[in-house]
């Protein structure tokens, strides 16, 4: 057992696992757990097949185009939720949708394919990156088993933390959650798409933190701005109306 490789792989994989778990928990809490968990399992299954088929050749898989495509799709989808969230919170307030009340109109009683695909993409892309880390760290030091154990420990530990956070996340009003999850998906989408295009982020992976803060702050400001627009528009329209008999301003 190579302890140095095990610890390095655990730490490097943890960053990717946090992203993976964040997406699954966010999608499950906002849409439907069945779809999100099925997407997670499907992603892990595809990943297992890829690892079994390619082995150490995984290092040669071109990650950049995958990052651009998955990032762009997460970005456009996340922005839809940000827009919906901003519009509904500015109209109905923050507390709408507490408990089990649904906020997504297109999530019915059937299987949630949208949630399935969101979780599937997040898990398969991040899982592929974890597999590449394992192969890179393990092959360089001739300690693939130690690297695999490090990555597996990271998935189990952070996955358990994500599962434990479910009750906490469930207490957040759905409208607010939709807005924050939208900002989260937009953050990951922007980050991955830019990385795939070769635009290096200042601070590397830490850019996820400030980029997320930037999008959340922008969403909060937009809630206020949209409320203001809603109040301001009728006044402007009234001002533009011609005066009729019996009415005065």
């Amino acid at each position: 057992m190579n302890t140095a490789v095990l610890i390095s792989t655990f730490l490097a994989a943890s960053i990717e696992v946090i992203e993976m778990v964040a997406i699954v928990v966010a999608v499950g809490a906002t849409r439907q757990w069945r779809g999100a968990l099925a997407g997670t399992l499907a992603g892990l299954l595809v990943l297992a097949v890829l690892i079994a088929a390619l082995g150490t050749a995984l290092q040669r898989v071109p990650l950049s185009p995958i990052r651009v495509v998955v990032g762009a799709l997460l970005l456009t989808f996340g922005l839809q939720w940000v827009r919906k969230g901003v519009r509904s919170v500015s109209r109905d307030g923050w507390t709408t949708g507490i408990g089990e009340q649904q906020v997504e109109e297109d999530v019915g009683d059937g299987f949630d394919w949208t949630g399935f695909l969101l979780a599937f993409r997040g898990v398969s892309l991040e899982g592929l990156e974890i597999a590449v880390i394992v192969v890179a760290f393990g092959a360089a030091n001739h300690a693939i088993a130690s690297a695999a154990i490090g990555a597996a420990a990271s998935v189990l530990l952070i996955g358990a933390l994500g599962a434990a956070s479910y009750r906490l996340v469930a207490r957040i009003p759905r409208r607010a959650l939709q807005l924050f999850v939208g900002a989260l998906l937009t953050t990951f989408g922007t980050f991955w798409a830019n990385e795939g295009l070769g635009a290096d982020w200042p601070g590397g992976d830490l850019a996820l933190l400030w980029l997320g803060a930037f999008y959340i702050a922008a969403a909060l400001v937009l809630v206020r701005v949209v409320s203001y627009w809603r109040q301001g528009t009728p006044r402007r329209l009234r001002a533009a109306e011609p005066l009729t008999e019996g009415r005065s301003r």
Partner: protein
Amino acid sequence: MMLWNRTRKVVTWWVVTFVTGDDWTVAAAVGAGLLATWGLVRSGVPAWWLLPLVVLGATVSSLYRAVLRER
């Protein structure tokens, strides 16, 4: 014919759900932002800042138009 119709339905659902949503202009702006970022990176210009700005601009513009439509 049935297979073609079903495929078309699935593709339309996928594009509307994941790409365009209720405002296709945001997806178009994101696409343009990605292309511009790629062009700048190829020219050797650091371009990490462009996409977040495009995203913000497109969102503000889309929300403004949505508020006007509500009236």
